[in-house]
């Protein structure tokens, strides 16, 4: 019996070595792949990602760097982007600051390489009796993408500010994608409030009976970057040139959205399946601002550390961001720094 077990152990170990070799082989192939210049970029759906969409439709990266192969991935949630980046399948990903911090806290070696957009966010309700957080009853359900998302952290910030208890609404959350949550809000049952982002926020605010009961800025206590670009440090260390090309291309796309939104709306109408005029209204909605500056990082990190969402409390904003002359970090000196 023992002999058989030992034999089997031996066979398994041999198999293991083979798979390990294979994995090695794959990763070396991947490195060659990077030298062959393939860039994998992951984003989500939403107006905040408009500069990325512009780069995609206008083939700006391909034009800036002939021979560069680009793979675009549109994933349905932040957790999926994070996991893909951890597995080495994605070079640059876009997400909000809190999910970035959570993974960084757990030991993922990555940095913010750029800001992307400031957007209005708001908690929208369809009930006439609900006009503020205080009106929400324990049985009312709040739809948001997932715990640990920026929407969730903003809600806890507001709950902390108003009621002194950050997790007050944590038992009322309903995990829903924005389109599902919007439909539930329109249908008028199950969901009392939806922490929404553009374009869903704009669509919802046009509907009678649906109104904002809390804005993201009020919850945060100021302006903040909604979406940032992140990459693992080995990406820009091993591919400095590719990194620089990407940053400059993004700079151009952001400039077009800021200075010539009409042109951008024309280019992007098909992508967002909206007519040009409607898209232009959305792109220039008060509070929409495309910029590579990173704002609010320190306040998010401080709040999340204070509430126990982050365990290692030695974050220095300088370590979290790969700085570049293209953009500024705003609000670094606020608080106890």
């Amino acid at each position, binding site marked *: 019996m023992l002999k058989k077990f030992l034999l089997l152990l031996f066979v398994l170990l041999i198999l293991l070595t083979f798979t390990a070799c294979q994995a090695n082989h794959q990763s070396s192939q991947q490195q060659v792949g990077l030298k062959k210049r393939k860039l994998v970029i992951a984003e989500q759906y939403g107006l905040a990602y408009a500069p990325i969409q512009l780069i995609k439709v206008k083939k700006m990266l391909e034009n800036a760097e002939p021979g560069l192969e680009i793979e675009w991935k549109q994933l349905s949630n932040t957790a999926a982007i994070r996991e893909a980046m951890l597995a080495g399948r994605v070079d640059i990903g876009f997400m909000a600051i809190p999910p970035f911090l959570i993974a960084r806290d757990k030991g*993922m070696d990555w940095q913010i390489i750029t800001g992307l957009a400031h957007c209005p966010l708001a908690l929208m309700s369809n009930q006439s009796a609900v006009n503020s957080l205080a009106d929400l009853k324990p049985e009312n359900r709040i739809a948001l993408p997932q715990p640990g998302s920026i929407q969730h952290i903003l809600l806890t910030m507001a709950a902390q500010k108003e009621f002194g208890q950050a997790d007050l609404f944590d038992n009322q959350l309903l995990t829903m994608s924005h389109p599902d949550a919007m439909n539930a809000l329109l249908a008028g049952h199950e969901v009392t409030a939806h922490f929404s982002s553009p374009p869903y926020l704009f669509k919802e605010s046009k509907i009678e009976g649906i109104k904002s009961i809390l804005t993201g800025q009020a919850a945060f206590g100021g302006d903040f970057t909604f979406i940032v670009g992140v990459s693992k440090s080995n990406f820009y260390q091993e591919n400095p040139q590719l990194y620089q090309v990407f940053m400059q291309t993004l700079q151009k796309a952001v400039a077009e959205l800021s200075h010539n939104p009409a042109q951008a709306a024309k280019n992007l109408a098909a992508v967002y399946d909206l007519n040009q005029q409607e898209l232009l209204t959305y792109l220039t909605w008060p509070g929409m601002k495309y910029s590579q500056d990173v704002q609010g990082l320190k306040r998010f990190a401080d709040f999340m550390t204070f509430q126990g969402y982050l365990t290692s409390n030695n974050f220095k904003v300088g370590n979290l961001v790969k700085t570049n002359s293209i953009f500024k970090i705003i609000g670094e000196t606020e608080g106890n720094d």
Partner: protein
Amino acid sequence: MISLPDKFKQRLGWILLLALIWQLIAASHFFSELIFPGLDKIILTLFTSLTNGNLLKQLIFSLIIIAQGLTLTVILALSLSILAYFSELAASLLETLTALAHPLPGIALMPLILIWFGAGKTAILLVIIHSVLWPLILNLRAGFNAMPSIYNLIAQNYCLTKLEFLFKILFPAALPYFISGLKISWARSWRALISAEMLFGAINSLGGIGWYIFQRRVFFDLPGVFAGLVVIILIGIIVEDFIFARLEAKTVQKWGMSK
């Protein structure tokens, strides 16, 4: 029953071996710790979740929902199958319904269920019932139909009433099929429950084991995800090796219907 301890020794041996290999890979740091956490971390997370967190309550909540779903489904499946056994018309209707509904994964029905019933406990129960009902009916009917027709003649000889026939002959004869149907149902109800919980979010204030795993995932806590999986595996082994094995030993094995 005598072979059971031996079987457990072997199983324990295999589990220890796999655990050892797992730990060796983790300790080699060939993969990042974020991708491949060691067993020590997983067990530690499991322990803290059980003692400090809500994992135990979430687990009980999940098990209660499964028990409710399974009870409802068994009653439903038995009544429908018996009806179909005695009535040709009901049988053809049931066959049609099974053919239509069985290929539909519960997950595919979720958007519909969400709109019609909201994201409450009813929705999860419906998903469980849907995932379990059709395979259970198929098994029960196969069991009923596999009964040798000579048993029917015996029943006629003894002038048994329909009710007596049902409880003394038809049920015992179909029991091996029923038990294997139950095993499938149990496994499928777990799957349905966990996918439903991961999609809908917390159903009561705490949610169940699926919600626990989802929460661990969004907070990038892989040891926590594994801890949730370990709990599911343990429950599966306990139910399979103790509850179902006992049930079989006391019935179909004792009666000499299966080994």
